[in-house]
Each structure stands twice: as C-alpha cells, then as structure tokens.
C-alpha cells in the first residue's frame, strides 16, 4: 500500500449557518494527482483551502503526511499553492518571488537564489529572472506561480482552477505541462476544476463533489463507466437518464425490454450516447440530427422518452423524421440511484 499524503476525516466547514463542506472523508496517496470536480459553489475551493490551512475545519481532522494539522495555520504547513489569479507579488522580480519562500523559511539568501534559479530553469523561465511579473505574459506568470509553489518541495501542491485565466487554445498545452511537472517531480497534487474534460485528462483520481458532499471518488474510467449516481453520470460526459421499471428480470422503458440482473421496482438507468446504436426502420423517430465534424449527434424519440445518440461519422447518415430502431447492449446499461 502506498503512503498516505493527505487525509480528511469527517471534515465540516461552516460559514455562519451555511455549510460549505459537509462531512467529507477521503485520502490521497503520495505522488497522486487528484482533482476536485463539481459545479460552482459545491465546496471545491473550500476543501482546497482546508488542505492549505487558509481555512480551519469547523469539525473533523485534516492530516498531512500523517500529522494532524487541523489547528495549524497555513504558514506552519508545508504546502505549495497556485492561485487562480497567480497572486504574484507585483513589487518583486520573478527571482525574488520564487526565492521568497525559502528566504522566509530561513534559507540563506544566496542559497535561496540558487534554488530559485534552478527551479526557474526547470519550468523554462531562465533569463526572465530580473523581470517584474507585469512584464510577463499570462502563461509565463503562471509558470512563475508554479515555480514559486514547488521551490520548497511541498508535501502537496494545490491548484485552484489554474486554467481559468489561460487562453482557451492554450489550455490543453498548459494542463499537459502541469501534469508533466507533477510526474517529473513526483509531487502529490490536488487540482480544482469545474470542467469535467480537464479533470478526466489530468487526474489519477477524481473526487466529484455536490453541495458540500462527495458524490463519488474514482479513476476517470471508473467514474465514466460506473457512475454511482445520476448526478455523476450526468456531470461526467453526456448520459441518457432513463426512468423505467424492472419486472421479471427485465428493464422496461418505452419500447425497450432489456434483460438485467436486478430486483423488481422503479429504477433509473443510464446509458452513454455513443453506446446506443441505430438501425433503420424501427418505431422510434429522429427529432434532430447535428453534424459535429467528428461524429453525428441525434435526438431520438421513443414514446415519451428522448435519447441522445452519438454515432461515428463513418456510419450512414440519418435525418430528422427517419424511423429507427434503438439497439442497446444490456451490459451498457447502468442502474443508478
């Protein structure tokens, strides 16, 4: 078993009467990159700040490297944080920004500068040490922020929506850089985002949050293939949520009747759009067809149910009004709460 870097035990954070984080527990292994994913206001940032020590829990324990740090202020924890706004000190040069942490922690000035130089080299900012942050581009500023956060070899590196200030086109590149850096330095990292695609791309594991609670924890594949709830299924990728009932080992909804190993009663099942196949000449109707370049997307009506279906562009195209037959492999059907 790998070493635990961070552990939350029944952590609650209240602001007055509002509860931002509502009794969550999880642990993060060393060297892992974990994302907090969820809609805005679900408590991701608060959880991150609880790790950093910028907030103290109202209840429960926060442990870093096995030590209970619940009552320790940020300055007494060993964390690095990359802020959404980068938070570079405008009155210090790039080098002074990066050397700030080591200097504060008592490293001799010359030594601190050497370390800062080394890290700036690593993140590809050599030669810009004497500039002020205002003289850098957005991407360069972000790299300074990262350099500043990792120069002290923190127990954990925290990112709060690091791509939100990056040009849409560059996001893919920057997130690959972050992932690469994290692996190269073997850092434990926690990454906050509300973008599921970003989360799927960078994470070892994802913590999906909803209204201050954890909806599900798992690897990207686990979450996509075996969502534990309709919320998770819907939030991670696209999903068709089908209300139906199970009778005599079969799931019934509209004209569907699929064999399934579940007890009788009302249930909700989900199925991914790309898992539904369409054959011409059925009783369902295509309501709309959209050409998306790499694939076709159809909205198909079967009785009072509507299905989102995604098909490769190589298949014969259908148009609105066509009659089709919905074909679903029962193994792709996932029952959720």
């Amino acid at each position, binding site marked *: 078993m790998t070493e635990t870097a961070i552990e939350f035990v029944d952590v609650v954070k209240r602001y007055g009467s509002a509860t931002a984080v509502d009794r969550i527990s999880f642990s993060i292994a060393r060297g892992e990159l974990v994302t907090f994913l969820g809609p805005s206001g679900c408590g991701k940032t608060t959880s991150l700040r609880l790790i950093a020590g910028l907030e103290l829990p109202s209840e429960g324990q926060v442990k870093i490297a096995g030590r209970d740090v619940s009552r320790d*202020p940020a300055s007494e924890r060993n964390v690095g944080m990359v802020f959404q706004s980068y938070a570079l000190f405008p009155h210090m040069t790039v080098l002074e920004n990066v050397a700030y*942490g080591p200097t504060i922690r008592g490293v001799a000035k010359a030594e601190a500068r050497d370390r800062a130089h080394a890290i700036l080299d690593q993140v590809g900012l050599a030669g810009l040490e004497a500039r002020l942050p205002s003289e850098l581009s*957005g991407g360069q500023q972000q790299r300074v922020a990262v350099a500043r956060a990792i120069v002290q070899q923190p127990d954990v590196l925290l990112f709060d929506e690091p791509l939100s200030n990056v040009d849409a086109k560059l996001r893919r590149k920057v997130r690959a850089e972050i992932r690469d850096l994290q692996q190269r330095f073997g850092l434990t990292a926690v990454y906050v985002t509300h973008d599921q695609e970003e989360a799927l791309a960078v994470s070892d594991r994802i913590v999906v949050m909803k209204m201050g609670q954890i909806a599900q924890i798992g690897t990207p594949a686990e979450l996509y293939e075996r969502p534990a709830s309709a919320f998770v299924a819907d939030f991670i990728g696209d999903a068709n949520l089908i209300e139906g009932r199970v009778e005599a080992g079969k799931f019934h909804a509209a004209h569907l009747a699929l064999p399934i190993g579940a007890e009788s009663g009302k249930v909700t099942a989900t199925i991914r759009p790309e898992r539904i196949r369409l054959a011409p000449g059925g009783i369902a109707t295509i309501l709309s067809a959209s050409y998306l370049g790499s694939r076709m997307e159809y909205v198909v009506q079967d009785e009072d149910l509507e299905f989102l279906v995604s098909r490769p562009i190589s298949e014969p195209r259908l148009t609105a009004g066509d009659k089709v037959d919905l074909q679903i492999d029962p193994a792709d059907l996932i029952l959720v709460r």
Partner: protein
Amino acid sequence: MARISLTSDRAGAAWLGLLALSLTALPWYKGAGLLAGPAASALAEALSGRGWFWPLIAAALALGAVALTRGWQVSRLALGLTLAAAFLYVWQGFAVGLRGPSSDWVGGVFARAAEGQTGLGWGGFLAGVALVGLLSDLVAARGFCRGERFASFCITAIVALLTTFVFFPILKLGLAAFVDTEGNLALATFWARLSAPDLWGVACFTGGGRCGVVVNTVVLGVLSATLATALGLALALLVNRTDFRMKRALRAISILPIITPPFVVGVAIILLFGRTGLVTGFVADLMEVRPTRWVYGLPGILIAQVLAFAPVTFLVLLSTLEAINPTLEEASRTLGARAMTTFRTVTWPLLRPGLAAAFLLAFIESLADFGNPIVLGGGYEVLSVKIFFAVVGARYDLGNAATLAMILLALTLIAFWLQMRWMGKKSYVTVTGKSDAGLAAPLPPILKIGVLAVVLPWVLFTLAVYIIIAVGGFVTDVGRWDLTPTLGHLSTAFRFEFAETGLELYGSAWDSMITTLWVAGIAAPLTTLVGILTAWLVARQDFAGRRAFEFGTMLSFAIPGTVVGVSYVAAFNVPPVDITGTAAILIICFIFRNMPVGMRAGLAALAQIDKSMEEASQTMGAGGGTTLRRVVLPLIRPAVFTALVYSFVTAMTAVSAVIFLVSARHNMATAYIMGRVEAGEYALAIAYSAVLMIVMILCVVVIQFLVGTRKLGRRQELQGRTAAEPAE
C-alpha cells in the same frame, strides 16, 4: 485533540516567561526605576503584606504548572486560568485605590490596603501585556483567526487598548455624572445637573434672555452645518458643473484648514471684524456708525466654522456629483425638460443623500469644535467650552463636566448614527463605475450666478484671513494697520543664541514647540501602525466579533475631543493607570483619536489588493507579521503616507482633548497659542501659528522623503496579475 508541547509553542512559552518576570522581577508600581527590581515586584509586595496580589500570583503559578506538567494543551483549563488571571489582574488594580480599599471587605481582609497603592509601573504594565499575549495565543490555538498567532495577538491587543483608552474612560466619566462632590452616588444631583435651566432654556427665541447651553450648541450646529453645506455645494457645482477650471486650486485650499492651527482663524476674524477691526473701522468711517462687538458670539463662531467646514462638505458633495451618471440628465433633456427643470427634478434628488451626509459631518464637527467658540464666543456658551471651564476653571466640578460631556456625546452619537444609516444605504446615487458617456449637464445660468455670488465672497474672505495669518506675525500690529515689518514677535517666541555653552533657546515658545514635535513625532508612527493594523485585521481576518470590532474603532472616532479630554482626566489621574501629566497620555490620546483615519486609508488601499497575495505568502511559510511587512505594506505605501501625514499634522494642531491633558512640563503648541490669545497677544499667536504651519509643511516633505510613494507603474499590477492578456 491537538497537543502543542511547550517547546513547540515558543510564543506561548515566551508570554508565560514574561508573566513570571513581570510578577517577580520588575517593580510593580510606577515611580520605582527598573533597577528597583525584584524587591519592588508584585511577589515582594505580596510577601510584605499587600495580600491582594496573591490571587493573581496563584493563578499565574497554576498556569505555569499546567504548562510544565501537562504540556501546553489546547485545553479549557489553560484558557480558563488565563481568563481568571486577567480578571484578577484588573481586580487588584481597582480593589485598592490611591487612598485605600475601594470596598469594606477588601479593607477588612488586607490590612495594608488602608495605605492605598499607586499606579502601575513596569511590572504591572508588562504583566498586562503578557496576559494579552497568553490569551491571544490560547484562542489562536483553538482556531481563532485560522490559528494565526500574529493576527490573534493584534486583535486581542487592540481590543485591550480600546477598552482601556476609549471605553473605560468614557464609562468612568459616565459614572462621574452620577456622583456628587463628596464621591457618593447621587441620582438627585445628577437630575439637578441634567435639568439645570442654563442647559435647556429657550428664552432667546421668545425674546429677552439667553438660551441654554445645549440649545446654543444645537442651534450653532444646525446653522453652521447648513451654511457649510450650502457653501460646499456651491463650490462643488462650480467645479463639476461649470467651465471653471480651478479644481486643483480649490482642492489645495480645502487642505488649508487641516494644517491651520486652531484659534488663528478666530484671531484673524477678530482683527477684521472686532470692535477695532480693520473692516469694522472701515465700515464705521464710511457709514458713520459706531463700531460694535457684534462679531463676538454666534455670528463670529458661525463665520469661523463655515470657513473651516466648507472644504469637508465640498469634498463630499464633489464626489456625489461626480458619481451621478450624466446620461440620466441627458435623458431628461432629450425628453424636452429645460435645464432648470432637469436640475430640479433629476440632479437635486440625486444629490440629497450627499447633502445629508455633508450636513451631518459638519454638524458633528461643529459640536466638537472648541477653538472657535472659546475665542469668538463672547457670552454665547456652547457645551465644549462649558465642559472646559467646569474642569479647568475656578469652579472645578467633574460631576457637572461629566453630565455635560454625556449630553454632548449623546448629541454626537445621534448624528453619527444618522450618518451611518444614511451612508449605509448606499443610496440610488451610485451608478456603475465611471460616467461612461456624455458630459455633466452645465448649470442653469441663474444658478451659476447664484453660485458665483456665494463663492466669490468666500474666496475673498479666505484670502483676507490667510493674508493676515501670513503677515500678522511679522508686522508691528496688523490690527491697527501698522505694517512696519518686525521680527519682534518671532523673537519673543523663538529667540536663540549661540553662546559659549552652545545653542541657547530663550524664546518663550521653544518648550511647547519641542514638546509638540516630539509628541507628534512619536504619536504619528504609532497611530499609523495601529490604524493600518486595524484596517488589515478588519479587511483580511475572519474572526468572531469582527463587526463589533470595526464599529468600536469607528465609534472612538465619533467621540468629541472635549469629551475625550475630560474622560481622560476622570480616568487617568488615579491608579491603576495613573498617567496624568506625562507625555504618554498625550501620545495615547492622539493614537486613539486619529487612528480611524489611518484605518480608513488602509481599508481603501486594501480593497484594491487581491487577498490571495497574502495567502500565497502564508502558504510559503510567512506568518501574519512577515506577510504584513513584506507584502502588504509595500503595496499600500500611499495609504501609510496619508495616515502618517494626517496623524502627524493632527497631533500638531489638535486642541480640544489636548487642552485638558497638557501640564507645565509637557505643554503643547496649541495650548501655548491659546494662552497668548487669551492674553490678547494676537501678533505673537499669529507668528507662532505661521511658524507651526511652515514646520508642518517641512515635516510632511520629510515624511514623503522617508516613506516615498513609489508607484507600481500600471494600475493592474496591484491586482497581482495581468490575467486578461493572452498568453505568449
């Protein structure tokens, strides 16, 4: 539960050590030098029979035992013991007064209590500091201020200081109102004082006789605030709504009253309009009427106050006018309304909240004003002056002064409360940020003429006053139009010689000038420190009771200087905090009176700075203090500069509280000037004032040089990012 061992919690250990030191090794009472050492410590005093120290010492011992044997636990026990020690510390100070025990049972238990005790000295002071430190450390360990020790200490310390130097004196003064001259509780006396006819009389309205002092004060306040608001409005309209392009000059003039020493404007008015005044004489000759003393009383005070407060109302109304979105007025005019109709139906209603704010501000200032009424009042008595004479005059009556002070305080707080309510509503004036399109509607011609008719006399008058201040001290007698240049007045005040023994200062004003510079020089940085710290705590720390904390600091600003002065007299010339007659009381008084200005400047500056920069600093290992010093202060330098300059200049020119606190050893410039004015030595007073103004300007230049106002270049840098730029 988290355990912090004594060795890891160095701060806690240090505070505990300081507590032990202050109880056993330092002289507890004042007067004894530090060298008196252990022999005069609380422990030694307790051993020699002053038994009222034992409970405190016992609590401290128990605290030490808990810390050493069970570790410095985050337990209720340590916190409880610290609170108990703090209570016992305060109790021992009040249980035994200067002349004996404060209650019979204390006298019964401790025989030596009959001897009484003097004020706290080094030991007593440091014990208080240590207890504040311990308390802040323990609550931080329990999560107060997110565990930030520095912030926790600052909050605890500032609360302790505000309690001691703002609320305790006011409370003590309030109690004094209910006590008769023998020191017994006497509600009847209080009622008699409160209902005295010379307070509430309205005979001046019904014809014949004078009004009561409260009525006088309110009438003066209302008239003065109305006129000052009207003048301020005229100035603001002139700057914002006409092609008059002297905005900078007007802003500069509006700073003048701040650096003008008190009394001197009053003196200038006397020299112009007094019975033998220049204008009076001129008019009397012209019209062949007999000169009168009309200016003494309400008219004179009114003129002086309007002159002093108009700049404030001007600034308030100017910002209100600038906030009005011109498109609103444009819309009205495109709908066909005439300029006058637009002004009446659109501009004026939008101005009303600003007018109310300006009025209340001027009203509060008028209530607090002491310098003008005492010079120009004649027979017209106002509360601040009456309070002064009840304490300083021949008929010393603290109870009466306290009653009057409470009335003045109540009036001020009502106005302050109204103002807070008005400002709090954030009214409908504020329209999105900048006025994006269009120009402000020019003033209708009739109004423009009206505005000029108000402003021009004001400009002439201000000029006349300041010309008199500029030349009055350097000519033989400006009041009699004897303009022979002379350095005689200056030499009376500031004569010096280079004798064999070195520089010899003979002038009568040197003492007060040097004291003033010292006191202001020490008070200004401390005031700035407390003000900026408070702003930082309020803006950046999330702690229980933050609202109350903020309100408390602002409230201390609302208390009129005269009330602060008497309250200090009531509170601090007896133990446990016996500091009357020292320079310290002056410095402390300035710190807590002026700190809210530094706080406001700090709050405004901090609002411009992204909080995450400080959080970044914290995650990199910097505590609150380091973050403040290395990240925050460099970024809010202009606010630090403002706070320093303001607190320095105010300390140099303040009078209403100071006048109660000066002593023969520590006289202040303003008190000296007041003495000269009372003696009729106007030229000397003016000469001194002129010198004072020059010294202040020089000092401001020095401060500017020391602090600098290094600009950070582009504005957005202050936000800590340049996010919007496309990357690479």
